[in-house]
């Protein structure tokens, strides 16, 4: 059994269900639109900002503000790609066709991740340029130091969020359970843990808190984060690796139910 056969099969699976199109387009639209809106608001607020806020004004990061919501659609995409197999019972046909479970899982992840990467990169680029257009005279340029890294990083961040969700869904199997944990975690809990002083030291090692560092060009004043932009993305990648490993081990061990 060649892995290329399985990759082709997984591509057929992913392109033949409607959820792929609507989750990914929602991620694109929400990320870009919300980024543009917040960029436009920031421009009009700039004059009334304190000096302190002006010093740490980060036009690049502001144009990615839509990702806080857009990533939720990416999570849904990642969860559904994997958990659909279980909720529909298709997993039995899939594993009977591809009994090598590692080949099955990693072909699926490869196809979904490649698609997520293309969409995320395009989204990140569009969010940046459209956001900067909204920022007017306060805008950053792609040639500025660290900006290109932040734009590429934004695409990688969204892709890793999707991949993390796939790993979690591979462990939990149920779409409802996976979404019920991931959505509130990334939308609320992680933000609270990463911003409240008491939990900040631990909270900033959470996958999204660490990973989003890569989209920052101007660090906030008094920033004492112990890792840099790539370090943060590395921490996020470790979380993703752990989720995928967990998913793989459980898939290998469990009966296909």
């Amino acid at each position, binding site marked *: *059994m060649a892995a290329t056969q399985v990759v082709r099969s997984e591509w057929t699976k992913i392109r*033949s269900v409607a959820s792929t199109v609507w989750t990914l387009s929602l991620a694109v639209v929400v990320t870009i639109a919300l980024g543009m809106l917040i960029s436009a608001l920031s421009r009009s607020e700039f004059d009334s900002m304190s000096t302190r806020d002006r010093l740490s004004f980060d036009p690049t990061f502001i144009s990615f503000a839509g990702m806080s919501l857009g990533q939720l659609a990416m999570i849904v995409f990642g969860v559904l790609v994997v958990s659909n197999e279980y909720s529909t019972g298709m997993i039995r046909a899939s*594993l009977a066709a591809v009994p090598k479970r590692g080949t099955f899982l990693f072909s699926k992840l490869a196809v979904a991740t490649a698609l997520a990467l293309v969409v995320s990169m395009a989204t990140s680029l569009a969010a940046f340029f459209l956001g900067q257009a909204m920022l007017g005279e306060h805008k950053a340029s792609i040639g500025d130091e660290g900006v290109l890294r932040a734009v590429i990083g934004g695409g990688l961040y969204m892709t890793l969020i999707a991949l993390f969700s796939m790993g979690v869904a591979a462990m939990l199997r149920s779409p409802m359970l996976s979404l019920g944990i991931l959505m509130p975690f990334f939308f609320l809990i992680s933000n609270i843990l990463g911003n409240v002083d008491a939990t900040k030291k631990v909270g900033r090692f959470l996958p999204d808190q660490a990973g989003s560092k890569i989209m920052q060009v101007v660090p906030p004043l008094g920033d004492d984060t112990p890792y840099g932009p790539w370090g943060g993305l590395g921490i996020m990648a470790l979380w993703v690796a752990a989720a995928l490993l967990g998913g793989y081990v459980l898939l290998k061990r469990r009966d296909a139910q």
Partner: protein
Amino acid sequence: MIELEGLTKRYGEKVAVDDLTFTVRPGIVTGFLGPNGAGKSTTMRMILGLDHPTAGDVRIDGTRYDRLEDPLTCIGALLEAKGVHPGRSAYNHLLCLAQSNGIQPRRVHEVLDAVGLTAVARKKAKGFSLGMGQRLGIAAALLGDPRILMFDEPVNGLDPEGIHWIRTLMKSLATQGRTVFVSSHLMSEMALTADHLVVIGQGRLLADTSMAEFIERNSRSYVRVRSPQRELLLDVLHQGGITAVAGGDGALEVDGSKAEYIGELAARHQLVLHELSPQQASLEEAFMQLTAESVEYHAHTGTPVPPQQWGDGWKRG
């Protein structure tokens, strides 16, 4: 050929499949019979490598399932009707399975045609009836033109025409020299299709026999005789060299004799008969007898245990 060797599956304390050893041979339809919950589906899932056995081993043409190169071209299975993504079309469902095993897309059209789903090939599976879902499952089983086919309760949800179709299909697949393994909880269904029979109850092997042998051994024909002069009748029968055993209701059962002969014998001795009827034990009865002890959930027959009065325990305590 499918070979099971001491196959066992335990879920905690509960034994679902208990040390099954048997072989499913090519060229015939082998029926896999057992009451609901006997472990048929679990066994079939273990054959496909979906569930891991607690002990024992399954070989598909001598190879472990997960070592098969493109398994769909070797063994095709229908597990249940609705193992399909409801938003995916029948064509794409089969296409993704075909691609994973390097099967040509042309073959997808062939099997859709074979099961009569060509007209709805591009329709989403969520609109399919149970029967159509079953046909799609059978199409998936046939996809790789495999030498071995396995069907779990294939007639479930099919209309009479569909049932007839699948019986014919299974027989023709076996005639082509393929191994056909089909499960059912209905003896009557098996009697029509199977050449060989494997019966299990509570996960244990109860019978592994040819259908002909099973029928011969179990379809007992006897004569039921009832008389108010039971003792006299017994004597007369004994003198005539006929052995009678006590049946229910004070009746006597005589194996392998003609009712006419017993009637004439009784008339000669002027005995009154209240009943004289030839009986045929059905295969269904034979099956039920075989599995009686192993049926997990009995329907209660006879007088129910009188319910305990509320507070009885307290009074006694």
